[in-house]
């Protein structure tokens, strides 16, 4: 194990404690909830910068909670991989928080802020945890916060979506926990590093992998477990949809990646290659099915939600690329991380833009979106930019991510993956332009329109521009991602 290098401040602990304390304070004193919410969300960005410099120095930070250390205690861990997800969380979180500040009425906002801070704290805690059971608790905290936020607007569709989401997320976490139970009794530890040393191939490991994989795939909404995502993500308030699609589904994906890279891929046989192939097939099916469904949707938010189903599929394409060569393929993982960042930013921008359209016209039916290009130019620009990134067209972050993935697939001769990626890209371009095209149609009849606050337009555009910048500055970011994917798999292979 790497030596513990304590930085000046325990950044990991602060990143977790700050939002959770903010949530409790906001619950205690609702009039201050807004100020607390905005300040703690912004403060998270500063803490993240501190953590970033510390990780740049030490590569992997470990923090023994309670001073006990594994296996008796819980350990936090920060490395480049967690940093990628934490960065997505902080950036999208700040954008959404600013957006939500204008989106919700004052009375509603008081309820929103503590729930959002709970979600933020749970996400940070999840990305920093190195303990399987602790991950379960963070998953539940995140899941319940996400459900509460989904139901927040209280409409029938939102309540129904939230209920479906609650059942799916509870089922997913419990199935994951069952896998944890098996691993614990097989190895006597819950800590990732110790598990890496102790886990051996066998029926227990195989079953645990199946259970944890299934539970997390359900929470990530991997095809065919995606049934709960479109109703929940399309009916939640716009800022919540952005959080759910951009961050919450990524959290369970992150655990899956961790489990895979550190525990199961090194095991030979069924635990390794076979499961990787299965995940890849499901990813391909998700791309095709999600894109096709997105193309058919009559409403913007549903379209964007199905697009999430499809884009999740891309993330899973890396699993077979890892195993086909028998060795970890850093290129494929680099691509996945790039996609995670790009999708988080672009998808959040799309949902926020969709929220603006909804606010503006009172509906989000695609055929009736007329003339918004003149009235909401920033929103239209945000949607279009984000859409270009989602479709994987240059010069956006989505393009780089998909290009890297394509390259990895080509190098390994995986033509099936290449074909699906290209087809998915075409379909994505199709559904994006289906919406964008309607922006410019002339109005058949005048209709009522509500003003959209400038902050709501600008936040959507800012996130979209960030997704664009991600494509323009690969040289700056690539070393980071290499840090994230480089040492992990290399260590894992004996």
């Amino acid at each position, binding site marked *: 194990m790497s030596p513990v290098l304590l930085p000046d401040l325990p950044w990991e602990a602060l990143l977790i404690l700050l939002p959770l304390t903010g949530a409790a304070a906001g619950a205690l004193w609702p009039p201050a909830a807004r100020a607390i919410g905005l300040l703690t969300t912004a403060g998270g960005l500063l803490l993240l910068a501190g953590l970033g410099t510390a990780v740049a120095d030490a590569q992997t930070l470990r923090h023994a909670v309670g001073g006990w250390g594994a296996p008796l205690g819980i350990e936090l861990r920060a490395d480049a991989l967690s940093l990628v997800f934490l960065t997505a969380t902080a950036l999208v979180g700040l954008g959404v928080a600013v957006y939500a500040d204008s989106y919700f009425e004052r009375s509603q906002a008081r309820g929103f802020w503590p729930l959002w801070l709970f979600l933020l704290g749970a996400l940070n805690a999840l990305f920093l945890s190195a303990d399987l*059971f602790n991950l379960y*608790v963070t998953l*539940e905290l995140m899941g*319940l916060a996400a*459900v*509460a936020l989904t*139901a927040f*607007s*209280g*409409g*029938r*569709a*939102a*309540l*129904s*979506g*939230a*209920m*479906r989401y*609650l*059942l799916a997320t*509870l*089922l997913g976490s*419990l199935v994951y*926990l*069952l896998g944890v*139970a*098996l691993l*614990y*009794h097989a190895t006597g530890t819950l800590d990732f590093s110790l598990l890496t040393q102790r886990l051996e191939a066998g029926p227990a490991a195989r079953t645990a992998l199946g259970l944890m994989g299934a539970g997390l795939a359900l929470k990530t909404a991997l095809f065919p477990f995606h049934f709960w995502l*479109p*109703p929940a993500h*399309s*009916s939640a308030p716009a800022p919540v949809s952005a959080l759910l699609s951009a961050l919450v589904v990524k959290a369970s994906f992150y655990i899956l990646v961790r489990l895979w890279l550190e525990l199961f891929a090194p095991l030979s046989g069924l635990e390794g290659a076979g499961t990787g192939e299965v995940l890849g097939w499901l990813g391909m099916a998700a791309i095709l099915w999600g894109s096709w469904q997105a193309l058919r949707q*009559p*409403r913007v*938010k*549903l379209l964007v939600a199905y697009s999430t189903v499809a884009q999740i599929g891309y993330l899973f394409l890396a699993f077979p690329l890892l195993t086909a060569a028998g060795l970890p393929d850093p290129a494929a993982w680099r691509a996945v991380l790039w996609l995670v960042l790009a999708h988080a930013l672009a998808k959040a921008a799309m949902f926020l833009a969709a929220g603006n359209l*909804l606010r503006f016209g009172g*509906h*989000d*039916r695609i055929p009736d979106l007329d003339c918004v290009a003149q009235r909401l130019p920033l929103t239209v620009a945000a949607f279009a930019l984000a859409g270009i990134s989602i479709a994987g067209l240059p010069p956006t972050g989505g393009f780089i991510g998909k290009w890297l993935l394509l390259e990895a697939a080509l190098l390994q001769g995986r033509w099936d993956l290449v074909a699906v990626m290209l087809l998915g890209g075409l379909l994505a371009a199709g559904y994006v332009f289906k919406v964008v095209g309607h922006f410019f149609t002339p109005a058949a009849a005048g209709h009522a329109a509500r003003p959209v606050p400038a902050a709501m337009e600008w936040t959507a555009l800012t996130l979209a521009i960030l997704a664009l910048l991600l494509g323009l500055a690969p040289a700056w970011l690539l070393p980071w991602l290499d840090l994230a994917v480089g040492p992990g798999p290399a260590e894992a292979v004996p």
Partner: protein
Amino acid sequence: MSAAGFYALAGVALVVLGLYGLAVQAHLLRKLLAVNILGSGVFLVLVGLGGPADAGPDPVPHAMVITGIVVAVSATALGLVLMLKLTTTSGRPTLEDDAPREGPEA
């Protein structure tokens, strides 16, 4: 087989029953019961697998199960409130099984 083994296997059976109930039952209250039973099954496996050790029972799974029970009651309480609110809004204590259709957003 040891006594703990009985309970671990009963836990597996409860997990299967819970999954089945979740899939088959349409009523939301019943689905929440199914989730609770599924959870109890998982907890039984977690402790039951600890088995008869010479050093006495392992307190770590016990602590984990207590945590799990509190999480379960929190989730159940939230689920019940959500179910009641949904029933007030839609008139039915079930989820619509059809895909979401076009309609005014809430």
